[in-house]
């Protein structure tokens, strides 16, 4: 089967704006759009997972293997499931009578568009000064999980601990928030 030369971590450098990128970007954005536009909430959640998957692949495209897999594991494996659970628990799957969009959705849309305009403008404005603008594609940084692990345990150990603390707090907090009602009714 596949010979060792092939592996995701050292993929040959892609030309600027490779075809893959366009496909992935399209998938991601389509998923995101569907996630915010669809009527049925569960469909939204599923579309969201598509967007997440697209993002994960974009990360891989960016040689961020670890981040990509973490993205899949956390978002598709946990967050998406959480969301659908929440939808089912809040009977959110049936669409409300008075429309799915809030009263002044137009303003929201306008503002979102404005944000995009500004951000895009900013990006294009700064395109000249951004790194990699020389046209020469920078070489893919060969970063192994080992390095990431060392970094996590070394330079970033404090954030790691804090995140651990935060997650614990969130776990407990979520449990308490969800439990509370039950306690009362008992």
């Amino acid at each position, binding site marked *: 089967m596949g010979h060792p030369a092939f592996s995701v971590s050292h993929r040959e450098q892609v030309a600027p*704006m490779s075809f893959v990128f366009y496909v992935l970007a399209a998938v991601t*954005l389509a998923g*995101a759009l569907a*996630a*915010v536009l669809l009527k049925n*909430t569960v469909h*939204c959640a599923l579309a*969201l997972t598509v967007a*997440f998957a697209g993002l994960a692949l974009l990360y891989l495209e*960016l040689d*961020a293997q*670890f981040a990509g897999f973490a*993205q899949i594991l*956390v*978002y598709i494996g946990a*967050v998406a499931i*959480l*969301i659908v659970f*929440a*939808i089912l*628990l*809040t*009977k*959110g799957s049936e669409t*409300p009578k008075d*429309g*799915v*969009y*809030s009263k002044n*959705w137009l303003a*929201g*849309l306008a503002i*979102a568009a404005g*944000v995009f305009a500004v*951000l895009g403008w900013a*990006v294009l404005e700064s*395109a000249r000064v*951004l*790194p*990699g*603008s020389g046209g020469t*594609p*920078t070489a893919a*940084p060969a*970063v192994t999980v080992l390095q*990431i692990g060392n970094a996590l345990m070394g330079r*970033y150990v404090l954030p*790691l601990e804090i*995140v651990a603390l*935060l*997650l614990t*707090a*969130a*776990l407990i*907090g*979520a*449990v308490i928030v*969800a439990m*509370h*009602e039950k306690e009362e009714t008992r």
Partner: protein
Amino acid sequence: MTPLTGYLLVAALLFSIGLGGALTRRNAILVLIGIELMLNAANLNLIAFWRYGPHPEALTGMMFAIFSIAVAAAEAAVGLGLVIQIHRHAHTTDLDQMNRMRG
């Protein structure tokens, strides 16, 4: 258009889509979805900058992204817990109706 610019534009678009969702949907969970999208857009930026930045070996952007993924997980857990609780309490997830603290 350099790769970085492309990624940044995608991220910007993703962010705006998320924002739009968060701004226009009634359902609290959908708003959360929008927020998740925005977070992910930020992560994409981080990773893109890490990849095309001057010092990819420093891992900073990557680490930032990983941490923010972890934090996002926490955020989702708590947020959804809150939504469920509110639903139990007010029997709605419609944000237009959740505008009072009494209940």
